[in-house]
């Protein structure tokens, strides 16, 4: 098997002096970078179609696999949301839609979008593709484990979708799966549906742990020479912190899913108190449903940031590159990401203000929650201060970033409503909450994903996406999504509760019928607009304008590979050496308006670059 390895082909670690200055061999002192600590990584190169594209150990291929599978599940989630909106806007329009179906669609839509779409896409998709490239590694540190991670995810998705075909259908207990109702009759899919859901989640967590370990160790232990933590692009910081959160938060999900499975299968009573159903006292007794909620939200709140932090990171890079300006306050941005991540473990019960938990918890959690608002606000300021005095390219990528800022600030502000315990009481469990989290962790991260797709597609495919289609895609999506969720907050003010299959005959709610019709129509249009992107990708893969090297004039390492798109092993036979942060745009005195990370100081002596 040893002929599969590239053992002696790659460089041995170079000794210290001869890095830069290239062929002259005489390097000035300012270019000194410590020699490599580790010898070069051996990679397994696939030969057959199967080992190259299916069971592949190349992080880039795994990233694309994650991306495609996550997008596939995401489209299922999108179709489910259409069906829900059809029912809400035009009750009875879909003849087959019963309350059972409606609740099953709500549940599967929520779970798919949060876990199987956004988490998998950001960490599995972008994480796999970008981490090794951006940190200057050859690949993930354990490529085999990384491959298994994807196939576990594949199985998890399979189990999840299988629940559509079992008797009783998928679980309809809401994405939070609160017991007792999740496993009792009276909730759709309380038989096989909920069991398959729990199994699928456990598989997902197991698979994700394998991937997550890879991301973390690659970032911590396998960076290239000169790549300090404070020279990493914010994308990597965002993905890194999110992965740390995932490693520490998913255990709570795993435990709660396991305990609920036992409650269902073995009739244990972890979460089940004495229950009277249809005049019969069930065999359960003595458990506490609130325990599940604590476990679930101990996972669930960090999960919000697992989705948000990579988006923060990516959008920072996109804004910086396309404003031709360094990200404002990089250090503050990094610390904000880390602080937000750390604090996210101390705020979970703000989802439970009206759950009947210990009343004093309200004080604690309201305080910690509002503290998080400060670093988050700092990030927003820094994004718009990056635009300030920049030279902003108004291309599709930048449009998505601007859309992100608007939707994220909007959703963040409504988060302050819900985080502040008293304000939450009238609004919780109403459409205000639905509008809030869709705005802040649905639409805002989606804007970033779209921006990232337009930004990195040239790297992955070697061809540009069509700008014209991209702009149409953006405006329909942004304006449509905003007009879905902005008015929806006002449904919450009226007091319309979430998860109602049918809208209401109550006098103060009937006024909202028109609004619901409008929202549903907008939802159909926005959903359909996403197929513009798919069309754009399919067409551009073959017919797009060739991208060439570094089409955006970016600084970070992923654009500096010897071949575009990068090959397995990323860097040819020489690992890159990093001399600066990735944000040296428009440096005074420089010829170009960007200085790539690999440019040694001796080549740009006359510039006034700040030390990073």
């Amino acid at each position, binding site marked *: 098997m040893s002929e599969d390895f590239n053992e002696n082909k790659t460089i041995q670690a170079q000794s210290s002096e001869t890095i830069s200055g290239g062929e002259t061999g005489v390097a000035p002192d300012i270019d000194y970078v410590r020699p*490599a600590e580790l010898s070069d990584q051996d990679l397994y190169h696939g030969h057959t179609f199967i080992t190259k594209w299916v069971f592949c150990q190349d992080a880039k291929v795994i990233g694309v696999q994650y991306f495609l599978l996550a997008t596939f599940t995401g489209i299922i989630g999108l179709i489910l949301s259409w069906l829900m909106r059809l029912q809400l806007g035009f009750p009875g329009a879909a003849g087959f839609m019963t309350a059972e179906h409606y609740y099953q669609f709500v549940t599967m839509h929520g779970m798919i979008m949060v876990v199987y779409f956004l988490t998998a896409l950001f960490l599995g998709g972008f994480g796999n593709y970008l981490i090794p490239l951006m940190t200057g590694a050859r690949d993930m540190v354990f490529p085999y484990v990384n491959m298994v991670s994807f196939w576990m995810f594949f199985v998890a998705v399979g189990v999840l979708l299988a629940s559509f075909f079992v008797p009783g259908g998928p679980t309809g207990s809401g994405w939070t799966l609160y017991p007792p109702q999740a496993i009792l009759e009276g909730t759709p899919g309380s038989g096989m549906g909920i069991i398959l859901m729990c199994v699928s989640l456990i598989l997902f967590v197991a698979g994700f*742990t394998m991937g997550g*370990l890879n991301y973390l160790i690659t970032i911590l232990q396998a960076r290239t020479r000169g790549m300090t933590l404070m020279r990493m692009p914010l994308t990597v910081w965002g993905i890194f912190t999110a992965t740390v959160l995932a*490693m520490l938060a998913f255990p*709570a999900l795993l435990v709660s899913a396991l305990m609920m499975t036992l409650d269902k299968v073995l009739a*244990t009573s*972890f979460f089940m108190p004495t229950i009277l159903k249809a005049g019969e006292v069930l065999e359960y007794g003595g458990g506490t449903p609130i325990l599940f909620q604590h476990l679930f939200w101990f996972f669930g709140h960090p999960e919000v940031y697992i989705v948000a932090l990579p988006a923060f990171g990516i959008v920072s890079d996109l804004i910086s590159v396309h404003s031709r300006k360094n990200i404002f306050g990089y250090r503050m941005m990094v610390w904000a990401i880390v602080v937000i991540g750390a604090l996210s473990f101390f705020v979970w019960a703000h989802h439970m203000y009206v759950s009947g938990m210990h009343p004093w918890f309200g004080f604690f959690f309201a305080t910690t929650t509002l503290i998080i608002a400060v670093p988050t606000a700092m990030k927003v300021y820094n994004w718009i201060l990056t635009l300030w005095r920049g030279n902003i390219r108004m291309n599709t990528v930048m449009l998505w970033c601007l859309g992100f800022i608007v939707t994220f600030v909007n959703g963040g502000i409504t988060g302050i409503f819900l985080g502040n315990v008293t304000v939450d009481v009238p609004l919780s469990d109403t459409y205000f909450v639905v509008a809030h989290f869709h705005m802040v962790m649905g639409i805002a991260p989606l804007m970033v994903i779209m921006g990232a797709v337009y930004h990195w597609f040239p790297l992955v495919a070697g061809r540009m996406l069509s700008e014209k289609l991209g702009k149409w895609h953006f405006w329909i999506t942004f304006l449509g999504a905003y007009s879905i969720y902005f008015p929806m907050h006002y449904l919450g003010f009226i007091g319309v509760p979430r998860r109602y299959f049918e809208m209401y005959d109550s006098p103060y709610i009937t006024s909202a019928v028109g609004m619901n019709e409008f929202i549903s129509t907008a939802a159909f249009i926005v959903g359909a607009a996403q197929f513009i992107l798919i069309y754009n990708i399919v067409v551009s893969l073959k017919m797009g304008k060739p991208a060439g090297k570094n089409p955006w004039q970016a600084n970070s390492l992923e654009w500096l590979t010897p071949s575009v798109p990068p090959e397995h092993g990323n860097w040819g036979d020489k690992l890159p050496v990093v001399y600066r942060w990735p944000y040296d745009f428009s440096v005074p005195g420089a010829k170009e308006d960007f200085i790539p990370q690999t440019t040694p100081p001796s080549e740009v002596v006359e510039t006034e670059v700040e030390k990073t």
Partner: protein
Amino acid sequence: MSSDPKIEGYKFKPGYSGMAADTASDQTMFKGVHWGKAMMWIFLLSDTFIFSCFLISYMKGRASTPVEWPNPSEVFALNAFGVPVPLLLIAIMTFVLITSSGTMALAVKYGYERNRKMCGWLIIATALGGLTFVGMQVFEWSKLIHEGVRPWENPFGAAQFGSFFFMITGFHGTHVSIGVIFLFIYAYKTFAGHYDEGKRGWFTTMKGDYVEIEILGLYWHFVDLVWVFIFAFFYLW
């Protein structure tokens, strides 16, 4: 800090200034720590959260039930010479697990000293200790099941007692069993000399190295560590 590895061009500093320097440096944050070892540490951190969530659930469940909780020192008592000795089996299990943890620590030491025989036999000893532990756990389970303890009910008091007992010790026992399997595999690899000659593993591009013994050792000590907490919270409370 005597065991700092030597890294060309990097000067180690002690204590927190060293931590700041390590963190601010390029390439690696954990200086001289093998990838696999770093990975095992982070995995154990994640696993700690799993066990913590189990124990926290147990604590919350036990603290909030108004039904009387069975007294563990009576439930887990064993008759020795006609006298019921509280927690006898548990005490022996603890003893066995700590013994195996000690042999594992020595195996790691001899591994680094490239003492192949000693290292291999100590791993075998550890594996046997683990097997004994699992065997005794099987005995304990069957005894309790015989006495009518089930995950959903038990004759001694609160139903959650059985639920938490089987779930937590079962999860821990699974960890031990997986550990035993790997111990045997690693013992084979040690005796076969894979770590001396740097043979590649089955599924990985990594070359064999005695650091793998330390990685496995970390896992094994972690299993012991968890048992310390289970012993304190489940059997002594």
